[in-house]
């Protein structure tokens, strides 16, 4: 049966298994661990990271990386906040669109430099990470956005309960994030142009030979990542309300971690955004559970988190190898029996 499931699906099953194991482990360590509150906490914080990791995945699939993504989130959150503070009558959808477009503009800068100026993405986005952050410092003039100045619809939006399952509350931010991830997933698997994203990351030379406009594909990936970071910036503003110049700091590495834990190949060519979503959940779950784990002091949390991330990636890799081996031996058996019959 396993032999029939495509590898990417297997990978997601393997990840869910790891997720389940982590849950099981902490439930033996932390009293009163498995309850609705855990779900509500994780889902609130994952809502933002899922969007960023989703954009990061698109970029990584094309053999690139976007380190400026955290700075984009910060800038967009601040700019959106100051826009609504000064014009409190703006419609919600218009405001969200503004965030997304602003994020996409930053993506355009990255995309132009990587795809058309042919500068390696790690260098470009290392540079724009600092540039976008400095732009935020300059633009904000060292002031902060505060919750008091924001309209109530915006502040209440992320925690609006859309529906409940038992004690699990499905809040608007999480539902929006999951819907976006699912939409991107469907686009990646079913839209013809999306295949080109994988083609470019899988074998750039062959993609060029096959007549694919590889530059446009890479450019497009960065634009989309920027747009998703823009949406994440909107959510960030709504969730925290108070925005300073350090908003979104460190998100770039956490998004890479989420994607990689989620089975996205850091060398490009393969990976799913569903995987990245589960990766984001896993990283967040571990992070949040460690806070409540008495055995680990505050100072060791980062180290334990890093180790657990490595372990979960290793576990995932080992599981995958096993499953693929199983597939291959099945395939061999079937071809042999075909020959014999």
């Amino acid at each position, binding site marked *: 049966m396993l032999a029939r499931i495509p590898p990417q699906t297997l990978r997601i099953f393997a990840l869910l298994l790891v997720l389940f194991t982590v849950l099981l482990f902490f439930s033996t360590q932390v009293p009163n661990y498995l309850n609705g509150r855990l779900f509500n906490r994780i889902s609130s914080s994952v809502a933002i990271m899922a969007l960023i990791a989703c954009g990061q995945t698109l970029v990584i699939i094309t053999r690139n990386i976007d380190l400026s993504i955290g700075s984009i989130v910060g800038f967009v959150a601040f700019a959106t906040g100051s826009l609504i503070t000064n014009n409190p009558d703006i419609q919600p959808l218009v405001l969200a669109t503004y965030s997304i477009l602003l994020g996409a503009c930053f993506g355009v800068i990255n995309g132009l430099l990587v795809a058309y100026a042919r500068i390696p993405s790690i260098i470009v986005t290392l540079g724009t990470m600092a540039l976008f952050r400095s732009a935020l410092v300059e633009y904000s003039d060292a002031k902060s956005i505060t919750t008091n100045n924001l309209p109530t619809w915006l502040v209440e939006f992320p925690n609006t309960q859309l529906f409940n399952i038992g004690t699990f509350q499905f809040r608007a931010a999480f539902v929006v994030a999951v819907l976006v991830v699912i939409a991107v997933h469907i686009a990646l698997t079913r*839209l*013809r142009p999306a*295949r080109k994203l*994988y*083609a470019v990351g*899988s*074998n750039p030379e062959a993609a060029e*030979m*096959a*007549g694919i406009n590889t530059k446009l594909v890479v450019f497009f990936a960065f634009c989309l990542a920027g747009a998703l970071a823009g949406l994440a910036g909107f959510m960030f503003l709504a969730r925290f309300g108070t925005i300073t110049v350090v908003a979104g700091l460190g998100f770039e590495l956490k998004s890479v971690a989420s994607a990689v834990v989620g089975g996205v190949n850091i060398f490009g060519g393969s990976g799913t955004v569903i995987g990245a979503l589960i990766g984001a959940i896993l990283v967040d779950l571990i992070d949040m559970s460690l806070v409540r784990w008495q055995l680990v002091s505050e100072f060791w949390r980062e180290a334990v988190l890093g180790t657990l991330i490595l372990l979960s990636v290793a576990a995932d890799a080992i599981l995958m190898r096993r499953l693929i081996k199983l597939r291959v031996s099945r395939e061999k058996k079937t071809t042999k029996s075909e020959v014999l019959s």
Partner: protein
Amino acid sequence: MSQPVLRLNGISKHFDMTKALSDMSITLMPGEVHAIVGENGAGKSTMIKIMTGIHQPTSGTIDVDGKARSISGPQAARDAGIAAIYQEPMVFPDLDVAENIFISDNSSGLLVRPAALRNRARALIERIGIKLDPSRIASGLTLAEQQTVEIARALSQDVRVLIMDEPTASLSAHEATLLRKIAKTLAGEGVAVVYISHRLEEIFEISDRVTVIRDGNHISTKLIEDVTSDGMITEMVGREVGNYFAKAAGTATNEIILEVRNLTLDGVFENISFDLHRGEVLCMAGLVGARRTDLALALFGVTPPTSGTIKYKGETTHFTTPRVAIEAGIAYVSEDRRKFGLAMPMAIKSNISLATLSDFLSPLGLLKHAREDKIAHHFTDRLNIRAPDVDTPVSMLSGGNQQKVMLAKWLNLNPELLIFDEPTRGIDIGAKAEVHDLIRTFVADGGAALVVSSDLPEVLAMGDRIFVMREGHQMGILDTANATQETVMILATGQLQEAV
């Protein structure tokens, strides 16, 4: 008479100072297999890249169906119905077969229906006449299967000119036969097939016309009936090659340097037994999947065998890692130059010293550049490596010269036993003969060589004896004095098992 589908008129191409093509004209008719031959560096690749829109000509024009047309890029080439497949197939390892075939297909709307895609892929694959599951991921395919995927991709785009660049260089004889059959079939359907190959015998087998090019110039285009193999070689190299695959003189001694008995690696090969004498070249022949490379890697300590014995210079040994084998005086020259052999962006001299870096250290632990230079010059002279200087990056050299740099790197270790995996794959005839000479000189000076080769004329010319394998089994050992291509192939295809 029908109209030519593609015609190059006086095409020239310059790269900076070097002239890759000058005044090249060629006419392709629908339904013909048109072979193009020439040494490496003769300009074949440049010509293909101009036909497929990757390069733009410096001067000259291109006609498609009798009308002047510029092929400004790969997409324009595809629109004109021109496609190419290469020795190293251009597949996307992470995508499945069907997705690979239809990657640049824009005909059926925005949405992909995987099941429909697979059915269309299956139809194309069947048209080629082979079996391949369209849902398989490309990274697990053999080279031959990957090429089939590329041919199917070309067919999906309604190809009218199919360029095959050294398509059989990496294939087993059986797979190559199949591929030639496919080329013939496509020509029968009216496609103009451009066939580029170093294997002259297959050119005689399938082509209708042959064009010889040399140093970027068009030398001749003739009907295949009007060409002889000697004549073609003469035109290619511009000189008589007296020693083209001349039979080597035997230098084997009675001393056994390597004695292998009942060597088995579970599931890979079993019961392999042979002796290798000092001064001898033992060639290993067989089709792809014969497990020759696996046997070589086992001898070199990469994948230690599960049972059986290896006696090296009279002593039973267990090489568990390549390092141990290297220290014992064994060198393994890989078939994959890019992957295992050379550090492409590094200079010739750095590549040569790479395996013996500790010999180049001064007492302070710094590299002695003067000594590195000296050794590098010694080898570039001895092996006739053609390069501007020893600081040239290896990536700038031709295949034949890269192969010689790799050989220099291993000779620098002063090995006694050289294991060669496909030493002349994809390099031109002149360089092949030079590599043969180098291997013969090495054994004449007291070494011994084990050569894995799929090139039968080469095996027959260079080897003292031929060890034939098939699917992990030893099929027999032939003396080259009384072996022919046919006797080797009979064993390799398993039509006869010689009593061992």
